[in-house]
């Protein structure tokens, strides 16, 4: 991996504090990171370690309390709706729970049509739009004819999550932030979805920030790994380095907590 590749998204001292005084909770504590263009980066941590808060800050859905986030080398500007819209053309997300990611009162067509509008295709003839949507659906092995005019709750969880990926396929952002996209889905669909994410990166050169609690999964797919504990990044580096030679205690614990086939599960590290 060459170092000359440009930085895509980086942060310095990014902090998020919820509440005031005695109720103060530091969700993300002075975190530094640097995601390179075209990388598959995993952020690993247990529940409550601040992964999702960090993701929301990266997406610009939550304002950071402190610190700076740089987008493509320069300080990002997401003040005002126009700037935000511009930013969101470049960075998109897939959320953890497909069942709550959709507006239950709108047909799924509208979600996909929104993507085309977002990319400036609002004035395209309807047949063109349908073509684009059909192409996106076939990318994720879905048939648009079967889905059109349906409401989200008529779909299975796997279908919903694949439709989310179709959405990303239509939007073609520079960065995709996938916040535990496989945790609500059964194991078979999980492999398909990971495969599709990989395809997205390989075909479009997308940077994928993958948030997960499963360090085994992170090892399997990612280039870089960031380990988070209680709002701090305790270790980061190449996936092989971090996982095969963990330095931090927390990383070691995370690794030993992965259940392995043909081996007795080591539960001694469980606090």
């Amino acid at each position, binding site marked *: 991996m060459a170092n000359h590749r440009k930085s895509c998204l980086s942060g310095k001292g990014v902090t998020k504090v919820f509440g005031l005084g005695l109720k103060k909770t530091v969700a993300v504590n002075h975190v530094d990171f640097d995601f390179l263009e075209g990388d598959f980066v995993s952020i690993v941590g247990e529940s409550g370690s601040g992964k999702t808060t960090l993701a929301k800050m990266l997406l610009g*859905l939550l304002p950071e309390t402190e610190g700076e986030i740089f987008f493509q080398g320069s300080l990002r500007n997401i003040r005002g709706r126009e700037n935000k819209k511009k930013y969101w053309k470049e960075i998109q*997300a897939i959320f953890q729970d497909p069942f709550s990611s959709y*507006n239950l009162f709108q047909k799924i067509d509208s*979600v996909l049509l929104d993507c085309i509008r977002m990319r400036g295709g609002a004035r395209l003839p309807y047949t063109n739009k349908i073509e684009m949507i059909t192409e996106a659906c076939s990318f994720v092995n879905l048939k648009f004819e079967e889905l059109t005019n349906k409401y989200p709750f008529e779909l299975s969880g796997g279908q919903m999550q694949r439709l989310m990926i179709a959405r990303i396929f239509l939007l073609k952002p520079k960065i995709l932030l996938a916040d535990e996209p496989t945790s609500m889905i059964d194991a078979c669909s999980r492999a398909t979805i990971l495969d599709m994410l990989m395809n997205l990166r390989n075909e479009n050169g997308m940077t994928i920030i993958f948030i997960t609690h499963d360090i085994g999964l992170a090892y399997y797919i990612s280039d870089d790994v960031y380990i988070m504990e209680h709002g701090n990044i305790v270790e980061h580096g190449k996936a092989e380095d971090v996982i095969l030679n963990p330095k931090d205690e927390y990383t070691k614990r995370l690794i030993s907590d992965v259940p392995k086939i043909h081996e007795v599960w080591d539960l001694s590290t469980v606090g």
Partner: protein
Amino acid sequence: MKHLLQQILQSGKFLTGFIIFLFILLLMIFYPMINPGDPLQTISIGTFAPPGTYVSMYDALDTELNVFKLDNAALNRLDSVLKPEDRVEMIMWFESAGVKVDVTLNDTEALLAAWNEYYDSSIQPSGMTKAKRNYYKRLNDNITRMLATIPKVIAKISEESGELVEVRQIKSTDYINTNKVANVFNLPLGTDNFGRNVLKELASAIKTSLLIGLIAGSVATLIGLTLGLVAGFLGGLIDDFIMFITNIFTVIPSFVLLILISYSIGQEQRGAATVAVVIGLTSWIWTARAVRSQVISLRNRDHVNLSKLSGHSFFRIMVADILPYIASYVVMALILQISAAILAEAQLSMLGLGPKTTEVPTLGLMMKWSMLYSAHLNGYWWSYFPVILTIALISFSLNLMNTGLDQVFNPTLRD
């Protein structure tokens, strides 16, 4: 949508409430059609005519006669003339005269038979005053006259001599068919203190009161919804400011506010619509608070985030992504607001701060006038009881519908 409607219609509570409400609505719509005209027209001279069918005596005299010989006619006649207190006095006489009879108050036939058999004006029971003895004489005369079948004479004043000229004799067996009388009408609920037809007024008052409820409920829901949505979704300083105002309104009892505002508007300006708007302006607080808390729980949902990421505007997210999720709640709040506004109007009117009294009837005004004319003390139940019942039924049916809807929308509440 179809499924939801099915579920709502299967809810027993909703259906019961809906049917009651429908009956009230049908009364409101159809009674004025059957009996058109100004509901505030004074029809009777004198106050509080009791419910019943009214036959014009003047016209009845000129109507063709039919003769019936009915056994119980005389008895019925007496039955309607003998007042309960007279019957008690009759039994008292038996006791003081030392006559042993076994009669009950309501058995007119036995009572009369005993009276005819034993009463004698020459008997002077000990301890009975002369006045009392005269009373019994008069009573006996009355009874005898009622039982006697002497024809009555209808006479008119002669234009020439000014003397009474006999026109017709009416025997006790003469009957007329009410269908042939020119002026017969029915007052199911009598008339009120102004001599207005109560049922007609009630049908019109239901309309006005429901309208007041609807306007007040809409105003309150609209204000509450807007403030709640903005406060909940934007958060931060705007939220703090809106909540500050809402909290101030919460600690001032809204009814006090309502009285003060109604008073300062003045009698002349207070139409039904004005009162409705004032009620709406003082009752949005709880809707605002509830909507705000619902929106706060919704604004961090993934679908809202996704909508933001899709570049939707604040307004679009509000309308498309948040409003549908709280719509059921808002509809339920609206129903309760309507019910509360109808009650608030009644309360205000009772205090004399309701709508101007001369233009439209409202449920509250009907109660107010009944009370001012002491209908409740004199037993003129028809002028206030139907109104109370209507208010209770409207409120009950709306609340029942609300509970039914609540059970449909909140599966945890289903029994």
